[in-house]
């Protein structure tokens, strides 16, 4: 009897493999093979010919070109990394804060949630890029500013002066005022993170809060002693997601794409992409190794 059950389980194990099969085929043919060829291209000079393409091995010279003789690669790459370093903490704090807000009971909660998840639907590189360089929008915005109505939250200049005069460090003030000006960018990048946090908040058992309340804890204490540790694994998840997400639509990736499809320098583009990947991997490794030490797991 026991023996038969084991064999059924064993059989089922292999059935599970069939389920993975389509994904695995894609993984090999549309991921591993291109990944390896991309590595090969980065060490070669790729020429597109009539019947496919030809490869000449040229060693590290693509990497050398990207690092030392390309006019903007290093600068753009550094800017991308700095951008991510600046934006990621803001996005995490912002989305955690608003997830907590949206998790409370109040009138119009359904509507507020619907609006807050709109960026998940609309977030897209192309819409954002059109938005930034758009003339009409800036005209309307400046008209609004001069008439003094509407959205003049961007008046953070006076606030900055006030803060600096009261002795707050200049770097911090610049960071905070920068955050205010980039509020739209931050909001539009935090839709999924709010969703993840919200789902996490809902899975915390209410009895924990009840117990804390009986013991006489304040809302502030309840947040730092219960909510924060309980969703700390999700902070890690969101951190990784945010970092990866911001790599998809930044300047460096645009440069990599343009190098390939506008200047047709495929080898150089591959080399750029690999160095880019190395940088991402490094950033992810550093952040996750720092954060995961602080993460609390229930089991």
């Amino acid at each position, binding site marked *: 009897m026991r023996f038969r059950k084991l064999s059924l389980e064993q059989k*089922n*194990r292999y*059935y*599970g*493999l069939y389920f*993975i099969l*389509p*994904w695995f085929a*894609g993984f090999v*043919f*549309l*991921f591993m093979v291109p990944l390896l060829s*991309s590595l090969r*291209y980065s060490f070669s000079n*790729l020429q597109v010919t009539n019947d*496919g393409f030809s490869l000449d091995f040229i060693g590290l010279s693509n990497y050398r070109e990207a690092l030392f003789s390309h006019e903007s690669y290093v600068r753009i790459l550094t800017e991308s990394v700095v951008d991510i370093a600046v934006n990621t903490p803001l996005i995490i704090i912002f989305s955690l804060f*608003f997830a907590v*807000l*949206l998790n*409370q009971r109040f009138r119009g909660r359904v509507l507020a*949630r*619907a*609006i*807050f*998840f*709109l*960026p998940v*639907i*609309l977030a*897209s*590189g*192309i*819409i954002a890029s*059109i938005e930034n360089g*758009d*003339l*009409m*929008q800036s*005209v*309307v915005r400046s*008209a609004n500013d001069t*008439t003094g109505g509407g*959205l003049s939250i961007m008046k953070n200049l006076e606030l900055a002066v006030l803060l600096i005069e009261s002795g707050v460090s200049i770097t911090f003030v610049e960071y905070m005022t920068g955050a205010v000006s980039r*509020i739209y960018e931050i*909001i*539009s990048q935090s839709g999924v993170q709010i969703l993840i946090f*919200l*789902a*996490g908040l809902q899975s915390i058992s209410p009895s924990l809060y009840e117990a804390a309340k009986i013991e006489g804890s304040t809302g502030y204490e309840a947040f730092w002693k219960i909510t924060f540790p309980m969703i700390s694994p999700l902070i890690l*998840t969101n951190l990784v997601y945010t970092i*990866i997400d911001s790599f*998809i639509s930044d300047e460096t990736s645009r440069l990599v*794409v343009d190098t*390939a499809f506008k200047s047709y320098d495929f080898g150089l*583009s*591959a080399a750029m*992409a*690999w160095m*880019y990947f190395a940088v*991402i991997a490094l950033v992810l490794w550093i952040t996750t190794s720092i954060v995961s030490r602080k993460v609390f797991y229930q089991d």
Partner: protein
Amino acid sequence: MQQSTKKELHHRMASAAYWLEFAKKWLWMAVRFVLIFGISFVIVYPILLKLSIAFKSMDDLYDSTVIWVPHTLTLDNFKLVFQAMNYPQVLLNTLLLSSAVMLLQTVTCVLAGYGFARVKFRGSGFLFAGVIFTILVPAQTIMVPLYLQFKNFDLFGLIKLIQGEPANLINTYWPFIISAALGMGVKTGLYVYIFRQFFKGIPREIEEAAYVDGAGYFTTFRSVILPNALPSMVTVMLFSFVWQWNDSFFTNMYLNEPKVMSSMMASSGYAIATFLSGGGQAETASYVQDPFFMSMMMNTSVLMAILPLIILYLFVQRHFVESVERSGLVG
């Protein structure tokens, strides 16, 4: 009973602690309202702005007294964009492509997710590390080889054997369909991850009970596991539909001609100018040189491109938020 609670209330209202509590509660409600309302406004603002611009006429455009509400509401902008961009055709293309990708991706990912949650053998963890790896590697890294692979597409030399040369799939919809069916489309790793997390949360006893009742492996999956997975499927389907709709990276790579919304938006300004001038080069230039007009057109076309998504969202929004809460998006 009534009397005593009233008395109690009076008594409590006399104490300072009650009023402090009361003030704190209302202050917090006010702060919360301002914050949520403010951020909601920032999110909705660009859409409102686009709506306002899209209904403006040329006269209103140069009238400095018009900021939000135009003097005369006009549908001219919509009509123009509608014709110049071949809107119905593009809408149909995008709709079909996104739906096909959505269905294929959901099926592949739900299967893979279940497999990864239930298969246990030496190296299964390693296999799942592959999923994480596909999320981590930026698409730019494998972009060039993928492009070349689809340009000279072949299945073990079979197509070459029949046709004499490998098929060129660039500028067709096949690259999207193939990558979706094989689970390598836009952000597919994330979907596999979501499903795996969800299935890990379903107790094995449910399956064992079904086996005891005599159901086979596939029957169990279809009639016991899948119905439970509906919430996370809704989430993944919406994500996959919307991200395919908005994706400009792969569409610009695989499609030379703008056939779908996201690739069309990038070139909408030029398309409209060409349409207005009837193709003449000199006149095209004069339209392009009026930045206000072009910007108005851009705004209208972006609005028209995202409008179907917003309408879709209005319908599924309640479902979506609920389903995410129960979907296993949480580890």
